[in-house]
């Protein structure tokens, strides 16, 4: 029996690139024996690619994958003691249930000891006998609740039954780790909930390590021992479901896991944060005056009579959700999502209060856009993020101006040729505009992330060259929209990076 807390799988600095774009970025993870680990993230975040690298269906560009301490990163899939349950089952249509499940067993060779003529003990490989295979298959079918289905044609099975056959086909090989790639994605809601519990039960009974991939946060919270939240190929947070829900490490995780209110706040005193127009006590210690992201779960906001709570609010919307009501209230310009079992009419004036330990404060991931590798071109424009932008270069030296040839003249009368000058360009998030007219801006990109923060969205627009623009907007866009990026000349701040004296003429 394996020792408790023994590491079975280690991913060390695993990277994967497809045609130059990074899909999985420096992935590090230890998986303990018998654990149920879930990779959670939106589609295209790299979670399936990571799973496929563990299975051997994809080779990492760099990095190590250690199984029981041995590197298997370059091993072909058929030599790995792991089995996968695929998204769309991937059953073999020309084989019946029995032969589908037997496929792996028939290929397997097991060592056995025998005594040769000279009485020496030797080891040989042999196939499973028919009886052994029969026994294993009926046991596997019992585990997935499909006893007596051996001779059925897989095409005659329902989606749920096909999924059970796919699971049986994988677990019958007694893999060290069972990999599940969104296995319940094709099932309807009720069936999915049932299968979630059954899978969890199966995990307990079999004692096999499960690595599960899903984009469904509820599924992840229900089933996992540990959740790995992935966004854009990067691990955002690793933790137990409770950790991740209660202590999200950044606004993305908070937004992705469950419903949440996210605001920009400022630390105004020790353990005091300002947001929603009021000062709140909190339990997270951050430096004074630092801008922070504040997350409050809708169920943690208490509705009180006017003047009894901290801030005044007005209910503007109400949805009945079965076990609770979901209210939208306005505090000034900020929207607040509230869940409560007590009914309130729309239009009611209320006030809100929040327990200090339910206010989650996080570092702001993005505060401003900084481009460290910017430079000035021949026409006194600045080049960064793969595009050329008009800019006021005179800000580099106070009181300077440009002459008719485009040279910078300082107060003291010194003359500089700025072309190829390295600078740092800074653009505030609120100063970047986007447009769906692709001709309007200097460069186009895709919206890869969108988080609602109180009274505005925070978007990340990524260009084809993987340059990011983080911006604030009050308008609603859709993720994966292609937009063009517009920055006004006066909003680009430049700072010298090189010594200006080298450019004097």
């Amino acid at each position, binding site marked *: 029996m394996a020792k408790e807390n023994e590491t079975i799988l280690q991913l060390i600095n695993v990277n994967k690139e497809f045609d130059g774009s990074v899909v999985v970025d420096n992935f590090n993870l230890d998986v303990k024996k018998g654990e149920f680990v879930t990779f959670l993230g939106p589609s295209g975040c790299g979670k399936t690619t990571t799973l496929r690298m563990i*299975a*051997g*269906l994809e080779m990492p560009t760099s990095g190590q994958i250690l199984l029981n301490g041995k590197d298997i990163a370059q091993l*072909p*899939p*058929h030599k790995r003691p*792991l*089995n*996968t349950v*695929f*998204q*769309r089952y*991937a*059953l*073999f*249509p*020309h084989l019946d249930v029995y032969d589908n499940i037997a*496929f*792996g067993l028939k*290929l*397997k060779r097991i060592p056995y000891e025998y005594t040769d003529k000279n009485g020496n003990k030797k080891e040989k490989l042999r196939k499973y006998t028919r009886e052994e295979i029969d026994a294993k298959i009926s046991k596997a079918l019992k585990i997935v609740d499909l006893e007596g289905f051996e001779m059925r*044609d897989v*095409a*005659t*099975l*329902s989606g749920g*039954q096909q999924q059970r056959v796919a699971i049986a*086909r*994988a677990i019958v*090989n007694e893999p060290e780790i069972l990999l599940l790639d969104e296995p319940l994605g094709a099932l309807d809601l009720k069936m999915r909930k049932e299968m979630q519990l059954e899978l969890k039960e199966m995990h307990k009974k079999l004692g096999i390590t499960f690595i599960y991939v899903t984009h469904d946060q509820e599924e992840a919270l229900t089933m996992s021992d540990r959740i790995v939240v992935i966004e854009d190929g990067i691990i955002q947070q690793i933790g137990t479901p409770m950790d991740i829900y209660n202590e999200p490490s950044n606004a993305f995780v908070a937004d992705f896991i469950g419903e949440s209110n996210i605001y920009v706040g400022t630390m105004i005193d020790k353990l005091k944060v300002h947001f929603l127009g009021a000062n709140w006590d909190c339990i997270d210690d951050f430096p004074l005056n630092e801008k922070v992201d504040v997350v409050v779960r809708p169920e943690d906001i208490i509705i009180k009579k006017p003047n009894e709570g901290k801030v005044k609010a007005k209910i503007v919307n109400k949805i009945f959700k079965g076990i609770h009501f979901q209210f939208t209230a306005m505090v000034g310009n900020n929207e607040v999502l509230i869940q409560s079992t007590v009914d309130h009419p729309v239009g009611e004036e209320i006030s809100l209060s929040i327990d200090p330990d339910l206010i989650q404060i996080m570092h702001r991931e993005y505060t401003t856009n900084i481009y460290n590798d910017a430079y000035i071109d021949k026409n006194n424009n600045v080049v960064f993020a793969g595009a050329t932008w008009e800019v006021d270069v005179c800000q580099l030296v106070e009181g300077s101006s440009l002459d008719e040839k485009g040279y910078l003249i300082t107060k003291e009368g010194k003359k500089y040729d700025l072309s190829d000058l390295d600078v740092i360009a800074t653009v505030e998030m609120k100063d970047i505009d986007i447009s769906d007219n692709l001709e309007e801006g200097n460069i186009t990109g895709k919206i890869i992330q969108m988080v609602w923060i109180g009274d505005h969205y925070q978007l990340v627009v990524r260009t084809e060259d993987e340059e990011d623009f983080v911006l604030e907007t009050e308008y609603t866009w859709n993720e994966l929209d292609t937009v063009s990026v517009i920055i006004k000349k006066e909003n680009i701040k430049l700072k010298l990076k090189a010594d200006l004296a080298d450019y004097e003429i």
Partner: protein
Amino acid sequence: MVKNEKLKVVLARVVLFFVLFLMYLPILVLIVFSFTKSTELGTWTGFSLQLYKDLFENKSLMRAIGNTLLIALVSALVSTILGTLGAVGTFYTKKRAKKSIETMTQLPVVNAEIVMALSLAVLFKAVNASYTFLTLLVGHVVLTVAFVYLNVKPRLVKMDSSIYEAALDLGATPRVALFKIILPEILPGIFSGFLISITLSLDDFVITQYLKEPSFETISTYIQKIVVKHPIPAEVRALTTLLFLVVLGMVIAITIYNNKKANKQLSAMNAKMRGVIK
């Protein structure tokens, strides 16, 4: 009203059968006149199996038939192997390469046969190769391989592409996965590709004429050679009848096979539906 409808249906039937009748009339006439002795087409001199006897006694014609079947079978076999491997290979390559390969395979399908024949002939001349069975085989493979590809490809597209990966995952080597999982799935496509290759090769004239060894005759080149100086030999009528019957038998067999499979699928689907309702 009802009467009118009925009349329409009857009329439609009549037109349909009339057109079908016209289409098959020449073949019917040929078949009927293959059972008479007269060498002159269109004169009935009483029932006789003489032409069939002549057919099997005509040594050069029999040799031509043998050659035709030989080249058809060998070229279809080669094409089937190459076309199938090609289709599987392209199916699992990257998108861009796939696109260009696919376009290239379409070309021989729409290309005029004479162009293919001439270019191959020029090519063989250029490398100073003498015309042999091998050059003829190359010609027929070039003619038919694209059709195998086009028959296999839809089966691959219909197949769940992850079953190959599932096989690898369960411990199969790539070769085992190909033979045990992919091939059974695309077998119907391979089979129909093979049949089409045989058919194309059987009645090919242009490529054969250009690329064959001078002394090597197939049915089409043999008849062509004779009609230049003589009337068509009467026993060809018997040959055509036999060919027609063979093809007819093949078509009927394939139809029955397909119907049976469709029925099986239908009942499988019904069973599934019943399961859902339950």
